[in-house]
């Protein structure tokens, strides 16, 4: 199979973690232990054992039996929480460290960017660092020279290229470093959490560059905590937990499952009637997220609409009920709060005793790609407002990007920054040679 770029079979990596062999030692034993420690260290050294301290018998498996195959030109995201083995995997695939067990084969030139600015030296100028870093990353001098202008232009460092890097701002340093790495032109591009640095605009530029590289047939292996980047960049994701593959599949599903697990929340919550939370007038018995096709899910395609369904039981007659839902995104920003005020059949009307289903419909192509939590407020009205129910983080769901090109992102590969991501109406008129009448009409007419 010639189109296979990376094959990993049964990769394991064991680390020793420092822990004394016995904890219940007498003082004398302890003294003996420390006195003989250098000898044991030397013994370990002569045996070529790679442990940093003498008394290491506690082992830790950073990776355990990880296997996958990646085709040429595929973009694969690796996700997982801290310490799940993502970085270890990348380090093994880029030959920085050896696996304890298992084998892997990587076809072609590997460019790995495990940290932006590796090998930058503060005393050297930007120009000198470009050449040094380029050669460390695997470029020939002639290659660097040929791409030099391109690199400088991409980095936007401009006139400071002959200034020692120690005088650069951290942003400039990152830009220059990524610019070098992005021009290595590898067959397999291995990138670890490097885009967490730099401002949003430059990050976008980097992502665009990575998509471009990938479209040119380069295999991209990409680690990020920012799950949205993984879904927009990669068609496939591998989820690691505790050094093992939990799921390996389409990016959207894998990321959604991973995110859902992290928050411990789901797309539906129900309560038994007798223990339902609420006040004297109304109680909440269920809340769920339903797609337009009627499916209860925590993973919404950015293009599709969905509704939040609230099941209420009204206990007293002659009361009006107010329902409010709020949505908060991944960094806690309130995206919107919505009350049922605009529906005259619901708002402040008397609700009959019994169970009710209240639906709030959210259109597709409105929310940004992110993880959201839902808060809900229910109050009784008549004659005064009395709180019945309020809870944050009731539901959690993810709006995920789609690889298709009919969302507001269109054919563009990068992310679209912003709190919301609406699909807006655009039009264009060729106004040369036309009367101004057309121009004034253009929007007023709608």
């Amino acid at each position, binding site marked *: 199979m010639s189109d296979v770029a990376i094959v990993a079979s049964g990769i394991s990596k064991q680390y020793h973690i420092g822990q004394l062999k016995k904890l219940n030692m007498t003082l004398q034993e302890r003294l003996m232990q420390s006195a003989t420690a250098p000898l044991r260290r030397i013994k370990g050294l002569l045996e070529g054992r790679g442990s940093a301290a003498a008394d290491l018998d506690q082992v830790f498996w950073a990776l355990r039996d990880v296997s996958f195959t990646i085709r040429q030109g595929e973009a694969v995201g690796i996700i997982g929480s801290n310490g799940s083995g993502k970085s270890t995997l990348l380090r093994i695939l880029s030959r920085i460290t050896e696996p304890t067990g298992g084998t892997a084969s990587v076809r072609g030139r590997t460019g790995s960017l495990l940290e932006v600015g*590796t090998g930058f030296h503060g005393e050297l100028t930007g120009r000198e660092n470009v050449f040094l870093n380029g050669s460390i990353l695997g*470029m020939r001098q002639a290659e660097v020279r040929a791409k030099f202008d391109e690199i400088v232009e991409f980095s936007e460092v401009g006139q400071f290229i002959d200034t020692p890097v120690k005088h650069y701002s951290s942003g400039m340093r990152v830009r220059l470093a990524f610019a070098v790495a992005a021009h290595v032109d590898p067959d397999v591009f291995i990138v670890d959490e490097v885009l967490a640095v730099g401002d949003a605009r430059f990050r976008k530029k980097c992502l665009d560059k990575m998509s471009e590289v990938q479209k040119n047939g380069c295999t991209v292996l990409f680690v990020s905590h920012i799950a949205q980047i993984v879904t927009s960049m990669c068609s496939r994701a591998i989820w690691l937990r505790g050094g093992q593959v939990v799921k390996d599949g389409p990016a959207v599903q894998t990321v959604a499952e991973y995110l859902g697990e992290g928050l411990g929340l789901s797309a539906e919550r129900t309560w038994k009637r007798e223990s339902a939370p609420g006040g004297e007038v109304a109680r909440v018995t269920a809340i769920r997220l339903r797609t337009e096709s009627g499916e209860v899910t925590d993973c919404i395609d950015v293009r599709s609409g969905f509704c939040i369904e609230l099941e209420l039981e009204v206990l007293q007659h002659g009361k009006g009920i107010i329902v409010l839902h709020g949505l908060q995104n991944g960094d806690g920003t309130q995206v919107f709060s919505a009350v049922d005020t605009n529906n005259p059949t619901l708002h402040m009307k008397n609700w009959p005793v019994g169970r009710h289903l209240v639906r709030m419909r959210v259109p597709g192509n409105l929310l940004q790609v992110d993880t959201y939590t839902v808060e809900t407020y229910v109050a009784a009205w008549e004659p005064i407002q009395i709180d019945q129910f309020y809870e944050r983080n009731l539901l959690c769901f993810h709006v995920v990007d789609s690889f298709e090109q009919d969302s507001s992102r269109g054919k563009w590969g990068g992310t679209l920054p912003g709190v919301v991501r609406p699909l807006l109406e655009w039009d264009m008129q060729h106004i040369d040679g036309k009367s101004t009448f057309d121009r004034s009409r253009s929007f007023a007419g709608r």
Partner: protein
Amino acid sequence: MDTLRVDRVSVVQIAPSKGWSPVSLSELWAYREVIFFLALRDIKVRYKQTVFGALWAVLQPFTSMVIFSVIFGRIAQMPSDGIPYPVFSYAALVPWMFFANSVTKASNSLVGNAGIVTRIYFPRLAMPLSAILGNTVDFVLAFLMLLALMVYFGVTPTANVVWLPLLLVLAFATALGVSLVLAAMNVQFRDVGHAVPFALQLAMFVTPVVYPASLIKDPAWQFAYALNPMVGVVEGFRWALLGTDTAPGPMILVSACVAAALIFGGARYFKRIERTFADVV
């Protein structure tokens, strides 16, 4: 130009290595530019933000020479094979300082560049190698000063000067062999960093830097002495440049063998420990 491009069609196999693995010279050659740029970096960075700049390359051996001349030449009346003592000691200090500085820098090369070692793959041998190469510029500068001193003291070099490059190779090989062991060991045991400057100081006294090797008369001791390859280098330098009667005899073969053994053993040890560098450093 495109040696690295050869990788394009090749498939890199990643597997746990077992036992001793050989040094891949072809791979080292493929990465020659990395070695060159790292050495260039060391050279460029070394005297940045200093007042004296590259003059330091000369100042170090020169001041040592002045002090030695006063203490050993004047006060202790050390014999110097009929050569003015300042030239006699300086001619030894030039190769010795090359060796000592190389070992100091190279033994710290992996630890000092941990940021690169843990993030990029390249043959780790490039690190100590480039550290030593970076020292050659200092050596050349100090050597020019030696020529100036010879002119000043009216010492003319002999035709044996043609052997100088071979002696340099021996010095380089010795420095590399020692550095390979120390650099690899230093990753795991930072004791090396503390021990090296001290050990080098002692080593200078078992090398004929401040005294002539001719003081050692006992053949058994002479053999033991030749086990230190720098003895052959230093005495050879004096012989080639100053015309002392210290032509490298059969003992230089012993030195060469020791140097070869150091390189060979050092490289194997280095390779053996190499696989754990990134995890331990």
